[in-house]
């Protein structure tokens, strides 16, 4: 029996070392994991210094600001010990016992090993310190009582490390670790319960995020990514698009820009392998069939605007002109009856700096009125999707007011 246990321990140890290993000669392990965890997504303001924080999170009960995580001793984390940093990521408790709000995804980061977390700390501490105090949080009572998070944590935060599943391949385990831990995919793609915690029984089933929809990325063939070939998932994660399957816009475009495109192709494939094995959730927006609807070609404002402005890159058959990244047919975005991501893309544009110029799109918020953007959105939904969707001028007005970028 003892021998058996030792053997099991060895196997688990081997799996663990494969799961946590990252062979990126060009990048240190710490930098790689900092990228994989996409720390910079929140710890920067547009045009600001990376990792110096200050980004505002608008919540129903007030505003939070991301802290400075550069090694500045006064305004950053320069005085933090290893234990304090590990506790912040694993328990959501910062220096001096301050409880974090789960806008900080410690509920996912908790899966990371101490070793990986300290590699991230090592990288952050190698950066130039930036002296910049984040604005004071403006949270109303009783939510401003941080100690209250203790009760929430007791119920919703597991404080458990990732345990490899010995029945699965090393690749699967690596993917599971990246998705559940540093990648914190569920923080946006898993719907939240009434306590704002990720709904474990509905993992990766998709959720709303401001003006955007974070789609169902479970293994369901119709509603999730189950029918995507692994190559398509890898293309999406590394290039920001997979022709006929999806294009990463808004916050997901940022995730590709700042994080996913830096990952090893082998790690991206591991993510694909894992995602394709997750429990299928049949909810959200179904994938459309690759078809164009000629009945949608009716003289009117929507078609006129599409022909004036969109065809130069998207083409009237939605196949994409200069680049397959401009392809519209087959995307979930054109099958959302509410056209949320169509609207959001028109209002905010798609301008990741890493994307080639033929893969970028300007925003049209300032060029067109609410009625015009609604008409062209509705045309896109009817022409390329099958949900008979419609966007109304008042929807555009509402989203215009709360555009993220």
């Amino acid at each position: 029996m003892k021998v058996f246990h030792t053997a099991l321990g060895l196997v688990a140890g081997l799996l663990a070392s494969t799961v946590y290993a990252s062979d990126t000669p060009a990048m240190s392990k710490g930098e790689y994991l900092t990228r994989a965890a996409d720390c910079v997504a929140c710890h920067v303001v547009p045009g600001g210094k990376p990792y110096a924080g200050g980004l505002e999170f608008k919540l129903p009960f007030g505003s939070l600001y991301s802290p400075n995580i550069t090694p500045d001793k006064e305004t950053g984390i320069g005085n933090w010990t290893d234990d304090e940093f590990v506790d912040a990521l694993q328990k959501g408790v910062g220096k001096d016992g301050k409880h974090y709000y789960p806008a900080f995804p410690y509920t996912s980061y908790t899966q990371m090993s101490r070793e990986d977390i300290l590699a991230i700390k090592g990288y952050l501490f190698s950066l130039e310190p930036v002296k910049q105090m984040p604005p004071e949080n403006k949270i109303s009572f009783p939510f401003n009582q941080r100690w209250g998070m203790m009760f929430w944590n007791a119920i919703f935060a597991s404080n458990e490390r990732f345990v490899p599943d010995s029945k699965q391949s090393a690749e699967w385990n690596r993917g599971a670790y990246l998705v559940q831990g540093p990648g914190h995919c569920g923080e946006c793609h898993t719907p939240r319960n009434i306590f704002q915690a990720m709904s474990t029984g509905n993992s990766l089933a998709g959720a709303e995020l401001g003006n955007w929809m974070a789609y169902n990325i479970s293994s369901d063939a119709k509603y999730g990514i189950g029918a995507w070939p692994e190559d398509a998932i890898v293309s999406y994660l590394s290039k920001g698009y997979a022709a006929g399957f999806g294009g990463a816009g808004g916050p997901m475009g940022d995730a590709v820009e700042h994080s996913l495109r830096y990952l090893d192709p082998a790690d991206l494939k591991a993510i694909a392998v894992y995602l394709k094995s997750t429990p299928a959730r049949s909810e959200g927006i179904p994938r459309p069939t690759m078809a164009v609807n000629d009945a949608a070609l009716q003289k009117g404002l929507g078609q006129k605007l599409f022909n004036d402005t969109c065809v130069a890159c998207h083409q009237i058959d939605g196949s994409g002109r200069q680049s397959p990244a401009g392809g519209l047919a087959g995307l979930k975005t054109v099958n959302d009856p509410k056209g949320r991501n169509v609207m959001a893309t028109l209002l905010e544009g798609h301008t990741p700096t890493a994307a080639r110029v033929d893969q970028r799109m300007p925003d049209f918020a300032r060029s067109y009125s609410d009625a015009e953007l609604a008409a062209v959105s509705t045309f896109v939904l009817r022409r390329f999707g099958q949900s008979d969707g419609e966007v109304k001028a008042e929807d555009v007005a509402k989203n215009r007011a709360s555009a993220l970028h």
Partner: protein
Amino acid sequence: MQKLMINGQEHNLDVADDMPLLWVLRDVMGLTGTKYGCGIAQCGVCTVHLDGQAVRSCVLPVSAVAGRKVTTIEAVGEQAVGQAVQKAWLDHEVVQCGYCQSGQIMSAVALLQEHPKANDEQIVNAMSGNLCRCATYTRIRAAIKSVSQA
């Protein structure tokens, strides 16, 4: 070094990956028949063919066309459809100032190659991304129709 196939000839050019195809054509190769308009794929003046499809060369990085066939206005007359369109353009005296017309002809040829019997709706849909500030649109449509009905 970029290996390009332009108007049936292979060229090895020492240009940056992200240089727009339009810059390569005009400034490096001296093929100035393709014009610069808006620079953001909104006007259609810079249209060329990439594997027979009309594309906006101002937003197309040269690295994206490596190994694919580029045809410009200079060589479009070597194809039967191109010749027919050019003749129709003269017959209908389409051109006024002429600045947008290279792009108009390239879009028209791409359309007629794909749909030799293009109807009004197909013509409008295919040509609507090409702007003409002299508003020669009715003559453009008439010229294309004369080819599609021939």
